[in-house]
């Protein structure tokens, strides 16, 4: 006798309770606080803010705790929360030239106005496990010196003065909003950049890497990479002027790309651009390379059929929340469609078998 599958409701409740228990882990080990995650797993927090499209370190840290460290799950929590928030308006464009830089390096000039600032980077650390951290996380105070004041000009501006790099004229067009209008093709650069800044880091990295290995190569130099805090200002209609409403940390990457010229453009350097919430060099460099690859059409370059040049391919597959949802949905029951396939395969096999028999008889 067959008893139909029932009890989904009870199963779900019990699964959730078990999950909560697993999340806490061994209760003889102290519980992790949201503040600890925010302070000590900062780069994870930054990734969740960037791909979750919401700048709030506390909420991102909470999401990481709730998701047991599964960052895509944490990003998902942030996205789902973000959609419910009211919108008061849009800030003025931020000025990254006025950034308080923690790090600012150029790979194209040995020295330049504003200087090279190495900042807190893993770059030259030797990747040896530090067993001291297992016992005691206390560190000696890092040497400090007075920070330079004043704006730090962009490297691309120096090249621009000589006319060696393509113009990037100021544009006051209100950019489209990916979160308020369906993503439709063709997508202009503002929309592409919007999609890329919240794109999955791994996907962006893989695509960018593919351009370096020849799938749509665009010869990128890191003209400049800067990380630091910038002020966010907003026009308040009642006041009639802009006021600072807060400060956010950003990573900005500007690439300078070789370009021999095309039918429509003279030989000159071209630009790729990456801008990401928090500290994420890998993501911002990847973004700049993919941005540059996607610009083939406006620069009159050939489409060599590389994945990174294909706007539809890149933009429709870059979002990890969409991707993981659809990928994981194949866990859901598919009894009905599978059943119809079963019937079809049985029928086709029956007929193929009968056909073979007939052939043999002939």
């Amino acid at each position, binding site marked *: 006798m067959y008893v139909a599958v029932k009890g989904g*409701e009870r*199963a*779900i409740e019990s699964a959730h309770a078990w999950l909560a228990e697993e999340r806490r882990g061994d209760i003889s080990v102290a519980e992790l606080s949201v503040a600890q995650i925010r302070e000590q797993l900062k780069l994870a927090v930054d990734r969740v803010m960037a791909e979750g499209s919401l700048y709030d370190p506390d909420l991102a840290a909470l999401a990481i705790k709730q998701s047991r460290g599964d960052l895509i799950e944490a990003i998902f929590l942030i996205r789902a929360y973000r959609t419910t928030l009211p919108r008061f308006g849009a800030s003025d464009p931020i000025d990254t030239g006025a950034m308080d830089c923690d790090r600012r390096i150029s790979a194209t000039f040995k020295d330049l106005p504003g200087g090279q600032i190495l900042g807190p980077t893993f770059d030259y650390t030797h990747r040896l496990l530090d067993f001291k951290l297992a016992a005691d996380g206390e560190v000696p105070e890092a040497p400090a010196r007075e920070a330079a004041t004043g704006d730090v000009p962009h490297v691309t501006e120096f090249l621009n003065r000589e006319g060696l790099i393509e113009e990037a004229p100021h544009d006051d067009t209100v950019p489209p909003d990916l979160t308020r209008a369906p993503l439709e093709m063709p997508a202009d650069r503002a929309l592409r950049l919007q999609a890329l800044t919240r794109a999955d880091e791994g996907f962006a990295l893989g695509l960018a890497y593919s351009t370096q290995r020849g799938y749509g190569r665009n010869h990128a130099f890191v003209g400049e990479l800067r990380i630091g805090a910038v002020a966010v200002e907003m026009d308040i209609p009642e006041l009639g002027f802009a006021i600072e409403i807060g400060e956010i940390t950003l990573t900005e990457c500007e690439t300078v790309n070789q370009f021999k010229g095309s039918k429509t453009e003279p030989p000159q350097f071209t630009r790729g651009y990456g801008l990401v919430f928090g500290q994420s060099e890998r993501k911002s460099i990847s973004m700049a390379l993919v941005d540059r690859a996607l610009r083939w059409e406006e620069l009159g370059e050939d489409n060599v059929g590389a994945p990174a040049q294909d706007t*539809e391919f890149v933009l429709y597959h870059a979002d990890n929340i969409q991707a993981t949802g659809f990928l994981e949905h194949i866990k859901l029951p598919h009894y009905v*469609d599978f059943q119809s396939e079963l019937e079809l395969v049985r029928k086709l096999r029956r007929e193929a078998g009968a056909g073979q028999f007939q052939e043999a008889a002939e």
Partner: protein
Amino acid sequence: MTEYNFAYLDEQTKRMIRRAILKGLAIPGYQVPFASREMPMPYGWGTGGVQVSAAVLTPEDRFKVIDQGADDTTNAVSIRSFFERTAGVATTTTTSEASVIQTRHRVPEEALTEDQILVYQVPIPEPLRFLEPRESETRKMHSLEEYGLMHVKLYEDIARHGHIATSYAYPVKVEGRYVMDPSPIPKFDNPKLGNMPAIQLFGAGREQRIYALPPYTQVVSLDFEDHPFEASKADHSCGLCGATDSYLDEVITDDQGGRMFVCSDTDYCEGRRAAGFFGEMSAENPSAPTMTTQRNLEFQT
């Protein structure tokens, strides 16, 4: 969850979705782009259907959710409880009592009425997608009514297999104009879409598309004169209720090749059993073969 608006979405978002629905109803079978929101459940798990349901539900509605025809599969349970919590609407598992039915992969066996709305969850709304991956191309093909590629695909199936080798998500033509994906329902369900008194709404959240069939719309499954469309199902009757006219799931009952067929529409099956019908493997059937072990397929809790 009092901090959320009725049915979770804010009123502006619901208005945006309703506009897309109205446009969809005005152009049956046409895929209307809409600014799909991130929902608190994953893309691919019914976010399109959930947004459409949220936009059409009113406090007076009675809501039913089925997945694979069943009310108690885990994802159906999850979506039903989401609306119980966020909208406080009454829910039911009885098809005829529901005013809004959200479904994944099935059309209920019981005929629907003019007072009902059927909301489909759609994974890939574009019927031409697996013939042409580019959205920019497929939109052009729809606007030019350029469906040759689809006919060639169906023809090639016949040339190769002797049949159209599509058993679910079988493409239909709506009012002689748009080729439409009916969502991954078995082709057995296709004939129910045409001339249906209820409103049918299709929501694809991840793909940001809504489309619709107003009541009594002409919906024709694509076929050829010499290879007419055939709505097929397993050639058995339901082991529990004996129905011969319902879509059946195959259930493996032991590791010796034993299996039985049962209605995929659980409400239909229960209704028939309550009315005194029983199948050859039902407990109420005196001539039912007795199995050596009583199986309990409940989820372990």
